[in-house]
C-alpha cells in the first residue's frame, strides 16, 4: 500500500476542526509534510516510528513506573506526524497569552497585597479565601520585580469552528517543556531536511531565555550567582525533564537533602563546604517546599526555606502561592481581570464556566448534565473529572450529590469538542484529539513565548482527555515562520 492511500483513508469527524484537512483538502500549512509522506511507503513510515521509539529509549527519555519493587521504563507515547501552526495563528496565540499572563501576574500581586479587585467587587472574597492554594505566608511579601509567574504553561484547545480557547492556566510548576525540546530533536531525524524547507521556527532558545531570567532574579550583587533546580528526585515522573533542563542551562540539580538553611540563607552542601544559593527554580509543589511552614511530613523540601525567601535572601521560581490564580473556580474571572487591570478586551476566549454555588447556574448545569464537563477545582492531571456525554447515570448522580454537598469544589463547563490531528497508528492515519501547551517565560524584560509547545494527544479513539496520566501522548509542534 502506498502512503497515498494512507492519506485517502483519513476521515476526520465532520463536526470537528481538523488541523490537517478542511472538507477533503489538505490545509496549506500541511502540504510540505503531506508531500514528504507521499514519497514514503508504509514500511518506511513504520520504520520511522520504530526509529523514534528507539531514540527515546536509548536516550533514556523515559519515566519509570515502580511496580512491585521493580522499575519499568516507559516512553511517553510519541506520534511522529507533527502538528503545524501557521504564522498568523501563532501571532494571535502569542499576543493572547502575553495579555493573559500580564493580567494574571497583576492579579497575584493584587490579591496578596491591596486586594483592589475584591474591594471593587469583581471577584468575591469567599472564592479567594476558600482556595487552599491561597497562602497567608505570601501576604504583603514583595516578590522580585513583582513577577509571580515566571514560567507558565497555558493549555489551549480549538472548538469546531477553529477558534482558540484557554482550557487551563498552569501557573505553579508546569511540566512537559523537555518534551517540546526532545520531540524536536526526534523529528529532525525523522523528517530530514524538511524543517528548513518549510520554515519551521526553532525552539532551542528556551533554556537560554529561562536561564537569563533566573540569573536576573539573584538577590545578591554577584556577577555569577548560584542558580539551582530543586527536584523531588529520581522517583519523580518528571525527573528526566529536571535533568534535561539543568543540563541545558548548566545549573546545579539539587534535591531537598542537598540544601540547608542557616541564618535565613540557603546553602548547598558541596565537597568544598557550604555554598550559598541565590535562585531556586523549584519543581517541588508549594505544599512540600518547607516542612516548617507547610506539610510537616515533607521530606522533599528544605526546612526554613520560606523564611529565607521572605527575607529576600533567595529567589524562588515560580513564586509560592500561585495556585490561587490557576484555581479552576477563579479561572472564570480571568476575562474580568484582563478588563480590570489592563482595560483591554481578552484576546483568547475562556471556556464558559458555571459556578455551582450559584443556584441558577447549578440548575442549568443539572438539567444539561450530558453536555457538561464537571471538574474538581483543585485537581489536575485529568483526575476528578466527569465527562457528561459518556458518564453513566450512577456517576452523574454521585457527582450531583457531591456538588450539592460542597459546590465550591466543582465547576461545570460545556463540552468543547477539541480539534483533531492525524496520528500514525497501527499502519493507518487516524484523527485524534489534541490540545496545545505553549510555554511562556516572564522575566524583568517582558514575556517571551518560544514558538512551539507541547501538543498533547488523546490516543484513545473519540477521547477528549489528553493528560499523560490518562493515556495521552504527544506530538512535535511546528510553528511556521511565514
Amino acid at each position, binding site marked *: 500500500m502506498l502512503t497515498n492511500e494512507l492519506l485517502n483513508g483519513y476521515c476526520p469527524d465532520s463536526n470537528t476542526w481538523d488541523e490537517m484537512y478542511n472538507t477533503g483538502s489538505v490545509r496549506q500549512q500541511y502540504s510540505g509534510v503531506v508531500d514528504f509522506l507521499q514519497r514514503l511507503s508504509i514500511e518506511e513510515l513504520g520504520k520511522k516510528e520504530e526509529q523514534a521509539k528507539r531514540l527515546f529509549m536509548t*536516550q*533514556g527519555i523515559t519515566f519509570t513506573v515502580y511496580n512491585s519493587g521493580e522499575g519499568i521504563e516507559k516512553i511517553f507515547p510519541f506520534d511522529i506526524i507533527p502538528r503545524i501552526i501557521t504564522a498568523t495563528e501563532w501571532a494571535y496565540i502569542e499576543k493572547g497569552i502575553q495579555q493573559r499572563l500580564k493580567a494574571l501576574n497583576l492579579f497575584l500581586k493584587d490579591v496578596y497585597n491591596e486586594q483592589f479587585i475584591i474591594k471593587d467587587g469583581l471577584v468575591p472574597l469567599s472564592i479567594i479565601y476558600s482556595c487552599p492554594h491561597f497562602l497567608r505566608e505570601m501576604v504583603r511579601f514583595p516578590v522580585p520585580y513583582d513577577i509571580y509567574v515566571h514560567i507558565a504553561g497555558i493549555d489551549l484547545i480549538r472548538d469546531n469552528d477553529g477558534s482558540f480557547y484557554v482550557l487551563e492556566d498552569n501557573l505553579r510548576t508546569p511540566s512537559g517543556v523537555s518534551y517540546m525540546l526532545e520531540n524536536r530533536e526526534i523529528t529532525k531525524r525523522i523528517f530530514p531536511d524538511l524543517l528548513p524547507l518549510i520554515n519551521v521556527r526553532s525552539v532551542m532558545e528556551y533554556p537560554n531565555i529561562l536561564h537569563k531570567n533566573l540569573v536576573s532574579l539573584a538577590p545578591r550583587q554577584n556577577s555569577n550567582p548560584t542558580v539551582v533546580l530543586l527536584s523531588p528526585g529520581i522517583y519523580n515522573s518528571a525527573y528526566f525533564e529536571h535533568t534535561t533542563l539543568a543540563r541545558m542551562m548548566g545549573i546545579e540539580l539539587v534535591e531537598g537533602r542537598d540544601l540547608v538553611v542557616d541564618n535565613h540563607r540557603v546553602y548547598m*552542601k558541596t*565537597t568544598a563546604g557550604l555554598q550559598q544559593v541565590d535562585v531556586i527554580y523549584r519543581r517541588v509543589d508549594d505544599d512540600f517546599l518547607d516542612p516548617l511552614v507547610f506539610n510537616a511530613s515533607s521530606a522533599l523540601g528544605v526546612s526554613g526555606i520560606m523564611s529565607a525567601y521572605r527575607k529576600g535572601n533567595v529567589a524562588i521560581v515560580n513564586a509560592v502561592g500561585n495556585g490561587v490564580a490557576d484555581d479552576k473556580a477563579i479561572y472564570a474571572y480571568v476575562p474580568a481581570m484582563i478588563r480590570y487591570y489592563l482595560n483591554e478586551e481578552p484576546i483568547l476566549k475562556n471556556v464558559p464556566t458555571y459556578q455551582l454555588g450559584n443556584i441558577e447556574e447549578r440548575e442549568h448545569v443539572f438539567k444539561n448534565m450530558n453536555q457538561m464537563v464537571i471538574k474538581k477545582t483543585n485537581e489536575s492531571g485529568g483526575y476528578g473529572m466527569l465527562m457528561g456525554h459518556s458518564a453513566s447515570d450512577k456517576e452523574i448522580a454521585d457527582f450531583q450529590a457531591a456538588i450539592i454537598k460542597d459546590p465550591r469544589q466543582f465547576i461545570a463547563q460545556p463540552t468543547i469538542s477539541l480539534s483533531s490531528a492525524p496520528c500514525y497508528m497501527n499502519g493507518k492515519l487516524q484523527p485524534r484529539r489534541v490540545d496545545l501547551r505553549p510555554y511562556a517565560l516572564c522575566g524583568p524584560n517582558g514575556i517571551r513565548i518560544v514558538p512551539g509547545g507541547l501538543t498533547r494527544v488523546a490516543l484513545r479513539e473519540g477521547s477528549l482527555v489528553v493528560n499523560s496520566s490518562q493515556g495521552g501522548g504527544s506530538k512535535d509542534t511546528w510553528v511556521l515562520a511565514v
Partner: protein
Amino acid sequence: MLSRVADSLFWMNRYMERTDGILRMLKTNYALSQDDLQYFSWQPVLKIFTFLSDEEAATIACQGRTVLQYMVSDKENPNSVLNIVTQARENARSVQDHITKELWQCLNDFYHTVRDEQLLEWLYKEDPITALDVLIKQGLLFYGTADITMARGEGYSFMNIGRFLERAIQSANILDVKFSDSKFDFSNVTDTTYWRYLLLSISGYELYLRKYSGGFEARRVVEQIVLNDHFPRSVMYSIDQVSRYFERMKSEQTTSAYNSIDFMIGKVKSRVRYSTPETIMQQGLHEFLTGVKNDLYAIGTALSQHYFAYT
C-alpha cells in the same frame, strides 16, 4: 560540587569496575570449565563476588549455568551484573547533569542490554562467551566514552578514585581467595592451567609471559598482581591512580579533610611500594592482603565522611 553528586559519581564507577571484574571472571572461568576434564568448581568465583555462605555456594558451585544465571541476572543477588548495572545507572540518573549525555546514553544502553531476553538466552542455553563478550564490550564503551567526553574536573577525579579503589580491592581479593584454595601452600599449586586462568581473568596473562619467561611460579604471580607498576590491574598501579586523582582534590577550603585522607593513601601506598615478593611471603600473603584491604576500606569510609556526607 554537591556532596551527593560526588558520592553518586564515585559509586557509579565502583559499580562499573565491579561489573567488568565479574564479567571477565565469568568468561575465563567458563572457558576453564570447558578445559577441565575433572570436576570444576565455581566456589572461588562465588566467594569473591557474592555474599553466599560457603554452604550455599557449595550447592551450586558445580553447575556452571546456574552460577552464570545467579551472577548475571538474578534479581535476588545484590551483586549480580543486572543489579549493579542498575545501581550504576540509578547513580548516573541522579547526576545526569554532571556526566556527558554520551556517557549517560552508554550506561542506559548497558542497562537495556543486560535485560535483553535474547542475550540472556545465549548465556544460559547457547555459547555464554558470546553473550559475556557483548556485555564486556558495553563496559569498555563506558570507559572509552568517559575518557573521551568527560571534563577533567572534580567529578572525573571522584569517578576515577572510585574505579581504582574498587580495582585495588578486587585484585587483592582475587589473589587472596585463589591462594586460599591451596591453603597458601605455594608448592601445592603445580597445575599451570590454574595460573593461566587466574592471570587471564584479570587480563594479565600476556604480560606475564613476556616478563617471566620461565614458566609459572607463585612468587612471580604475586609480584605481578601486587607489585607490578606496569600492570593496570595490579594493586600497586591501582593505588597509585587513587593517589594521583586524589591529589587533584587539594583545595584551600578542605585542608584538614584532605590531609587526613592523603595520609591514609600515602600509608597504604608505602606499605605496598616497599614490599618485595619475599617480604610478603615472609609476612604471609593472606595477612599482607588483609592489611592492604583494610587500609583501602578505611579510605572509602573516610571519603564518605569528609566529602560525601550530606545527610
